[in-house]
């Protein structure tokens, strides 16, 4: 365990204190969301607000699933499909293109990278209407392709992987593999991908979360027959006011899969330091 000898990486009580403070600030709102989900609707206006869970969770969750119109279970399954496919695709194509931009030489490389970065700078809100018109034209409105296919690649992902690969992968490594007779794709698969794993896991995590939480576009192009989970949340209709207890119970349920995904990817991110210290 030589890693421990590096003083920058040593932990002290102060480290834990800082982390605990940071996490408490981060976690509080979601904790509070759970508190409301376990109580009746009107506690939201208490001053000071309630800080301990109540006993209404079962009833609130029951109301969520009993709401036929919202089709919450469908929403969960559909979101799982959409987010998984988009995440896998984004990670794959981003690492591939990021590697190409960082380590391969080809004509127009810088210009094309600039174009990719520029695509992120376009404000999205106004693009909704033309994109919707396009979907109607090809007949995809109302079906899941409409929220999957346009998002199979991401400028964000390519740029992130490019920046990461530029530092993490040494040119010698690529050259050496090339001389060994590896095809470029083999180099990517056998040499580059393992090195990119921690960052790819971060990208995968962020992509999954973003896709899972996406509301505006699914809402614009899908309908209540094929909802994603965020769409289901918005379909929990009440007469005129928001039933926060029900909405938060549903939101808490909708957040659970994200934790599962986090644990899955989290293990990949942890890689780095620990693994390196054991092997070398």
């Amino acid at each position: 365990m030589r890693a421990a000898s590096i003083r920058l990486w040593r932990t002290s009580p102060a480290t834990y204190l800082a982390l605990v403070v940071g996490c408490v600030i981060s976690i509080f709102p979601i904790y509070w969301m759970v508190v409301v989900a376990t109580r009746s609707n009107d506690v939201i206006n208490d001053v000071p607000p309630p800080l301990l869970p109540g006993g209404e969770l079962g009833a609130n969750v029951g109301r969520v699933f009993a709401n036929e119109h919202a089709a919450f279970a469908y929403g969960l399954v559909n979101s799982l499909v959409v987010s998984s496919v988009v995440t896998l695709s984004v990670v794959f194509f981003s690492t591939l293109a990021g590697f190409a931009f960082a380590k391969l030489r080809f004509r127009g490389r810088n210009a094309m990278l600039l174009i990719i970065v520029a695509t992120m700078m376009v404000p999205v809100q106004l693009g909704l209407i033309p994109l919707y018109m396009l979907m109607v034209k090809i007949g995809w409105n109302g079906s899941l392709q409409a929220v999957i296919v346009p998002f199979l690649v991401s400028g964000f992902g390519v740029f992130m992987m490019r920046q990461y690969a530029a530092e993490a992968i040494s040119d010698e490594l690529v050259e050496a593999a090339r001389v060994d007779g590896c095809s470029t794709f083999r180099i990517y698969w056998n040499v580059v991908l393992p090195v990119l794993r921690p960052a790819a896991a971060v990208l995968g995590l962020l992509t999954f979360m973003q896709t899972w939480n996406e509301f505006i576009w699914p809402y614009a192009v899908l309908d209540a027959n094929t909802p994603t989970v965020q769409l289901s949340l918005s379909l929990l209709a009440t007469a005129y006011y928001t039933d926060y207890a029900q909405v938060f119970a549903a939101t808490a349920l909708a957040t659970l899969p994200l934790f599962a995904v986090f644990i899955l990817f989290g293990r990949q991110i942890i890689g780095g330091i620990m693994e390196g210290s054991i092997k070398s």
Partner: protein
Amino acid sequence: MTSSSVVRSSAAARAAGDRVPWRSRLTRADVKFAPYFFIAPFFVLFAIFGAFPLVYTGWVSLHDWHLIGEHTFVGLGNYTALFADPDFWNALKNTVGIFVIATVPQLLLALMMANLLNRKIRGRTFFRMGVLIPNVTSVAAVGIVFGQLFARDVGLVNYLVTALGLDAVDWQANTWSSWIAIAVMVDWRWTGYNTLILLGAMQAISKDLFEAAELDGAAPRQQFWRITVPLLRPTLVFTVIISTIGGLQLFTEPVIFGNGRMLGGTLGQFQTVTMYMYETAFQRFQYGYGAAIAWSLFGLIVVFSLVNLLIVRRAAR
């Protein structure tokens, strides 16, 4: 890491590999065209689903285009009107102001948190998950919680402020106070996100460098600023650019802060450019003018990103 074994065997292969013509031709084709195949999927999908809306919006911006009505071609009329529009300049001032007071502390904090998380700590997954949670939380929950914090009469922050003997602040009413409140929301939601991105990059820095520095007797602080930060440069550039893009398109947080309205306060004191664009296109139905705002914003982001790129490059050198 298998790097050392690859390097060793390659020296032998180098001599043999060059002699086989057909294979070398294949290799040459592979070297030449593979990069294009690797980046093609992005461009193909973008050409279909990204370029069309972009070009269409550009076309719309050259018209006096009622969202659900008639339209007539006006050339660059929308753009000249925009540059003389005080509401646009007000929105731009707000956007840049909030961007500056939100982004600088956010990135420094993210760097610090990433450094803490890059240690041998117990409960790593828990802490890493913890910092990212704000980004997972639903917008509805964020709105309610921050409403609770920054309310004038019943807010927690004002409770503390008055406990210190100061006057309660009407957070939405003043320019400075609304900017601060929004910056806090932005930092709360996005610091963990940047932390994780930086952490991913920190994990890739070779341990040998730190061990060498350790032997030279470099203090932890020196190790951090002399090794970690310079080696993070590409990723830092990435986070700065992403924050610039996100910051100048700031929308969700100020909308939540303003009770879901696009006005950005009674006198527009926290209306951002994107809010103004949304208000113009979808509430006033001036789609053409809104499209002109979108394209101008796009231009501004390009300029800002380039400026920030230069600053970061120089600073991290």
